[in-house]
C-alpha cells in the first residue's frame, strides 16, 4: 500500500513540477496583480496564480493533486518522528533521475516580534552504498570528507548542530529545525559496529577536525544513550536498538566563523554561487539566533541524504534604526544574482500567511507563485521565488527581496508545546531543577517524552522526582533512569508524561553539588557549569485538525473523523541550558594543603611513635651552660672536670 502510494505520489510530484513550470512560463507576460491567496482555501489552492482563477481546468486539477502530495511528504516524515521539513522533498524522485542531486532553498518568515527568521536548507541526495565493501571513491556533489566518515565509522545517521543563542519559542513560534544552544551531536551506528564507544570517540574527534569545533570534548561523561527520545529519521530503519545510538551536547560550545567556513565548504557551490553567497559571517553572527546543522540519513536502502541547514533570526530593532524594513541586502549585505548551477532546484519561500491582503507588510518584488504547505501542524502560505528562472531576477539581474512593515500589531498563534527550565535553591550544597512543560492546546492532552542528561557532578536524587500538573500528582507512565558514575557517565532521565490540556506540568528533582578535584574545574570555575538542555519530544495535535472551519469546505462524508495525516505532528522542544555553580576549593594552595594535612598526619604518627618507642625515665638534671663550657676548657687543659 505504502509502496504503491509512494510511486503514485512520485508521479504526481513530477506532474506538479511540470505544471508549475508551465504556469510560471505562461505568467511571464501577465502583469502581477494583488497576490492574495486566501489562507483558508483548503488544500486545493497550492499553486494558485494571480489573474488566473479558472482559465485552465485541466491544469488546475493537476496542480490541485500535486499539492496533496506536497502535503503528504511532511506527514510521512512526521510519522517517522522527525521535524516536518518545510520543503518539497520528494520532488526529484520521478523519471530516470541522476545519481546525485542538489537542491537549495531559503525560507523567510517574518516573526511577530518584528524579527526575521531565515532558514536555509541545502539537500544533497546520492544513490550510493557507503556500506559496501569496496569504498566509494568518486564524489561529485556529496562532500568527500563526510562520505569517508560515513563509510569509515559505519554511520547510519548523523545529526550535528551548532547553535549560538536560544530559540524563543514563545516569541518566535516553532523553528523548522530545533536545536539546543551549543553543539549537539547524535549518531546512529550500523549494527555491524562492535565497539560503539570506541567508534564514537574516534568519530567525534574526526568531526571536531571537520567542523573546527570542540567536539573532542565529547567523552563518556557527556554521552548518553536515550532509549526513546531520538529515533532514526531515515526512511530505512533497520537499527532501532538504542545500543547503537549516541547522543551528546556541549552547551558551552561557542559557535562562530571558524565553524561556518568548513560548513560552507561542504556545499557543492561553496559560497561562490546560489543562496550560499548570502552567508557572510559578519552579518550572520550579528543576529539573535544562529544555528547551523548537518543531517545525514539514508532515505532508501541505496541512497543517502545530506541536509545542511542554517537558521538565523535577525533582530530588526538593533540594526534598523527604528525603520521596520527588511531586505536581503540589509540583512546579508548581498543580493542574489543566480542559483547554484549544480542545483536542480533553488527557491526562496516567504511566509505570507499572516499577510493575505498585504495589510501587515509589503513584499517586493511581488511574486506570482504561491504555495501552501502544512508545516508544524499549521497550514502556511508562502510566496515562492524560483531562482532557476531568469524572470525572478528581473531587469536588474539581481534579486533583493524587500519587506516593508505597515503595521506592527499582529497576533501569533501560541505554540502548543513549550518548555522552560531553571534551578531553584540557594547556596552551593544542594539545589532543585525545575522543568516546566506547557500544553496550550485548549482541549487535547498529549504525551511528551522528556529527556534530561545531567552531568555527574550534580548528583540527582531520583526519589525526589515529582511531576505535577494542575496541582495534582501526574505519574509518568514510563521512566528510564540511568544513574551517573563519578567521572564516567552522566545521569540520564527519560520519561513519558501526559500533559493535560491547557496546563503547566512541573517536573522537579533535587540534586547535590559535588566538590571536584582542583584539576577538574574549568578555567573560570566561578562562571559555573553548564547543563545541557532538556529535550521534549512529542506528537502534538495539529492546529489544522483543531480547525473546525475546514469541514465547511469539504464534503461532509469525508470529514467526520479528523484526517489522520494531519491530526498530529512531531515537535522537539529544547529548554534553556542551565548554569550551575559548584563549590570550589582554593586553587592557589595545593602545596599548602598537602603540607598542612601531612603535618597533621605526622603529628598523629609522631605522637604515637613517641609513646610507642620510648619508655619513661627519671630525668637527670643536665649541667648548666657555664659548667659545660668550663668542663670543655678543663678537658683541654687535662684537668679532671668539675
Amino acid at each position: 500500500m505504502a509502496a504503491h502510494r509512494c510511486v503514485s505520489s512520485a508521479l504526481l510530484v513530477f506532474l506538479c513540477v511540470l505544471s508549475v513550470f508551465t504556469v510560471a512560463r505562461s505568467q511571464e507576460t501577465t502583469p502581477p496583480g494583488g497576490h492574495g491567496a486566501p489562507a483558508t482555501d483548503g488544500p486545493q489552492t497550492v499553486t494558485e496564480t494571480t489573474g488566473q482563477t479558472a482559465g485552465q481546468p485541466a491544469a488546475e486539477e493537476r496542480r490541485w493533486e500535486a499539492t496533496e502530495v506536497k502535503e503528504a511528504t511532511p506527514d510521512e516524515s512526521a510519522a517517522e518522528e522527525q521535524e516536518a521539513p518545510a520543503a518539497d522533498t520528494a520532488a526529484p524522485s520521478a523519471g530516470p533521475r541522476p545519481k546525485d542531486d542538489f537542491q537549495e532553498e531559503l525560507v523567510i518568515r517574518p516573526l511577530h516580534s518584528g524579527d526575521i527568521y531565515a532558514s536555509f536548507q541545502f539537500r544533497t541526495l546520492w544513490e550510493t552504498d557507503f556500506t559496501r565493501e569496496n569504498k566509494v571513491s568518486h564524489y561529485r556533489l556529496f562532500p568527500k570528507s563526510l562520505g569517508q566518515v560515513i563509510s569509515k565509522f559505519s554511520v547510519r545517521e548523523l545529526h550535528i548542530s551548532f547553535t549560538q543563542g536560544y530559540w524563543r519559542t514563545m516569541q518566535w513560534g516553532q523553528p523548522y529545525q530545533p536545536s539546543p544552544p551549543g553543539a549537539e551531536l547524535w549518531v546512529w551506528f550500523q549494527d555491524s559496529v562492535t565497539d560503539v564507544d570506541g567508534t564514537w570517540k574516534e568519530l567525534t574527534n574526526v568531526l571536531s577536525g571537520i567542523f573546527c569545533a570542540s567536539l573532542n570534548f565529547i567523552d563518556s561523561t557527556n554521552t548518553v544513550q536515550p532509549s526513546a527520545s531520538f529515533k532514526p529519521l531515515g526512511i530505512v530503519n533497520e537499527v532501532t536498538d538504542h545500543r547503537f545510538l549516541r547522543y551528546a551536547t556541549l552547551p558551552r560550545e561557542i559557535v562562530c566563523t571558524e565553524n561556518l567556513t568548513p560548513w560552507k565548504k561542504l556545499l557543492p557551490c561553496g559560497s561562490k554561487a546560489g543562496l550560499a553567497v548570502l552567508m557572510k559571517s559578519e552579518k550572520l553572527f550579528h543576529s539573535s539566533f544562529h544555528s547551523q546543522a548537518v543531517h545525514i540519513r539514508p532515505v532508501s536502502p541505496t541512497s543517502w541524504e545530506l541536509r545542511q541547514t542554517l537558521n538565523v533570526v535577525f533582530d530588526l530593532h538593533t540594526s534598523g534604526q527604528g525603520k521596520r524594513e527588511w531586505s536581503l541586502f540589509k540583512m546579508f549585505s548581498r543580493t542574489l544574482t543566480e542559483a547554484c548551477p549544480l542545483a536542480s532546484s533553488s527557491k526562496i519561500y516567504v511566509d505570507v500567511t499572516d499577510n493575505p491582503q498585504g495589510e501587515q507588510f509589503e513584499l517586493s518584488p511581488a511574486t506570482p507563485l504561491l504555495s501552501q504547505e502544512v508545516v508544524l501542524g499549521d497550514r502556511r502560505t508562502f510566496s515562492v521565488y524560483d531562482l532557476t528562472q531568469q524572470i525572478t531576477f528581473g531587469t536588474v539581474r539581481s534579486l533583493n527581496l524587500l519587506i516593508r512593515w505597515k503595521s506592527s500589531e499582529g497576533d501569533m498563534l501560541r505554540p502548543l508545546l513549550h518548555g522552560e527550565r531553571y534551578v531553584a535553591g540557594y547556596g552551593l550544597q544542594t539545589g532543585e531543577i525545575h522543568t516546566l512543560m506547557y500544553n496550550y492546546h485548549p482541549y487535547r492532552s498529549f504525551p511528551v517524552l522528556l529527556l534530561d542528561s545531567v552531568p555527574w557532578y550534580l548528583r540527582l536524587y531520583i526519589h525526589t522526582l515529582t511531576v505535577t500538573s494542575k496541582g495534582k500528582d501526574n505519574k509518568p507512565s514510563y521512566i528510564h533512569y540511568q544513574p551517573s558514575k563519578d567521572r564516567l557517565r552522566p545521569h540520564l532521565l527519560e520519561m513519558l508524561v501526559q500533559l493535560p490540556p491547557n496546563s503547566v506540568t512541573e517536573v522537579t528533582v533535587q540534586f547535590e553539588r559535588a566538590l571536584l578535584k582542583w584539576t577538574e574545574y574549568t578555567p573560570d570555575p566561578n562562571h559555573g557549569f553548564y547543563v545541557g538542555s532538556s529535550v521534549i519530544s512529542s506528537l502534538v495535535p495539529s492546529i489544522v485538525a483543531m480547525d473546525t472551519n475546514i469541514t465547511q469546505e469539504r464534503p461532509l462524508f469525508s470529514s467526520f473523523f479528523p484526517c489522520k495525516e494531519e491530526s498530529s505532528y512531531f515537535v522537539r522542544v529544547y529548554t534553556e541550558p542551565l548554569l550551575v555553580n559548584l563549590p570550589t576549593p582554593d586553587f592557589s594552595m595545593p602545596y599548602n594543603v598537602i603540607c598542612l594535612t601531612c603535618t597533621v598526619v605526622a603529628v598523629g604518627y609522631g605522637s604515637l611513635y613517641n609513646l610507642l618507642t620510648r619508655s619513661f625515665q627519671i630525668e637527670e638534671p643536665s649541667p648548666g651552660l657555664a659548667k659545660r663550657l668550663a668542663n670543655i676548657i678543663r678537658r683541654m687543659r687535662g684537668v679532671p672536670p668539675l
Partner: protein
Amino acid sequence: MAAPLTLLLLVAVTLRAALFRAGLTDLISGRVEVVSPLTAWKRVVEGLALLDLGVSPYSGDVFHETPLIIYLFHFLVDYAEITFILADVITAVALYLAVKDYNKQVFRKQRYALEADRYPLDCLEIIRSPKEMYYIPLKVAMFYLLNPFTILSCVAMSTCGLNNAVIALFILSTIKGNVLLSAIFLSLATYQSIYPLTLCAPALLYLMQRQYIPVNFRRAGFWWFIAQYAFMYLGSLFVIVGLSFFLLGSWDYLPSVYGFILSVPDLTPNIGLFWYFFAEMFEHFRLFFLCVFQINIFFYTIPLSIKLKEHPVFLIFMQLAVISIFKSYPTVGDIALYMAFLPVWSHLHRFLRNIFLVSCVLLACSALFPVLWHLWIYAGSANSNFYYAITLLFNVAQILLISDYFYAFLRREHHLTYGLYLKRKDGSEATLVLK
C-alpha cells in the same frame, strides 16, 4: 543499677523522639559533619527508589551502603526512626554491659596483684576503688546516649549508628568471652566498613588472655586459637558476602562499597582529612598518597598491639579513635563511639596533660563547623580554606586527646611498677620523661 539505666534510656529515647517530631531531620541530615556519602539516609532512600525503578542501586554513584542495609530498610523503611533509636539503645546497653564486665575483671586482677604485693607501697592512691568504678558503666551509657554527636547522628538517621551498634555488640561479645559471636560481629562490622578489621588484634589478645593462652609465637596453642578465630571470622564473612551476592545477584556492590571507601572518589567536605587533601592533590601523586593515607590507618595496629598486649580493651579504644580520625569518610557518630569509652579511663585524669585545652578546642571546633560552612557555602564570604582549617584543628585536637590518654595510661602502668613518688639518685623529687 537497672533503674538509673532504664531512666537514662527513657530520657534518651524521649529526647530523640522529640527531635524527630520537631522535624529537625531534614535540617540535620544535610549537615556534612553528621552524614557522609557512605552513611547518609538520603542515599539509602535513593537506593530504595532505584530498586523500585528496577535499576541496580550500585549502577550509580549515589548509593554506597552494603546490600544487607538496603534489604534491612526495604522492610523497615517505615520504621526507620525507631530502628535508629533502637540501634543507639542497643549500643548503649551493650557498652554498659561490656564495661561492667570489664570493670569486674579489672578489679579482680587488681586484687590478685595486691594480694601478691606486686604494687609499690606508695601506689595505693592510684589503685582503683569499687566505689569510683561503680558508676562507670552508667556513665559510659550516658556518654554515648546523651552525647550531642550521637543525638545528631541519630536524628539525621545516619547509618553510622548501625555500624556503632554492631561494633558495640562485637565488644560486648568479646568481653563476655564468646569467641563465635565476637567473630561474627567483627565480620559484620568489617563488612559494613572495612576499617574495623583492625579490631581483630585486640579481640584476639583479649580472648586469649581470658582463656589463659600465652601470646607466644612458638606455642602451638597460640596459633591454634588464631586459626580457630580466623576460620570463624572468614567463615561468617564468606556467608555474609555470599548472602549479599544472592540478594543482589551481582558483585557490583564490591567496588561500589569497598572501592568507594578505599579510593575516595567523593570529595564532599567532611570532618576528616581526606576530602580537601585529595581535592588539591596533584594527579600523579594521588595513588601514592591514597595508599599512604589508607595504610596509615591499618599500620598502627601492629605497634599498638605489641605495646598494649596486656590491655586489649584500651587497645580497642585506641583503635576506634585512630579509625575515626583517619578514616576516609568520618562523621561525628564515629567520634561518639570512642568518646563513650572516656569514663572507663577516668582514673587516668591525674596524668592527663592538656585535657582542658583539647576539650576547649573540640568544643570550639564543633561550634565553628556550621558557622564556617555557612560562610563558605551560603554567604560566599569565606572560602573552602576556612572550613578546611577547622577540620585540621579538630583532628589535631582529637589526636592530642588520644595521645594524651595513651600517655596517661602508659604512665600509670609505669607508676604501678616503679612507685608513684620517684626519687632521683640524690634523693630529690624526680620528673618522668620519655626517652
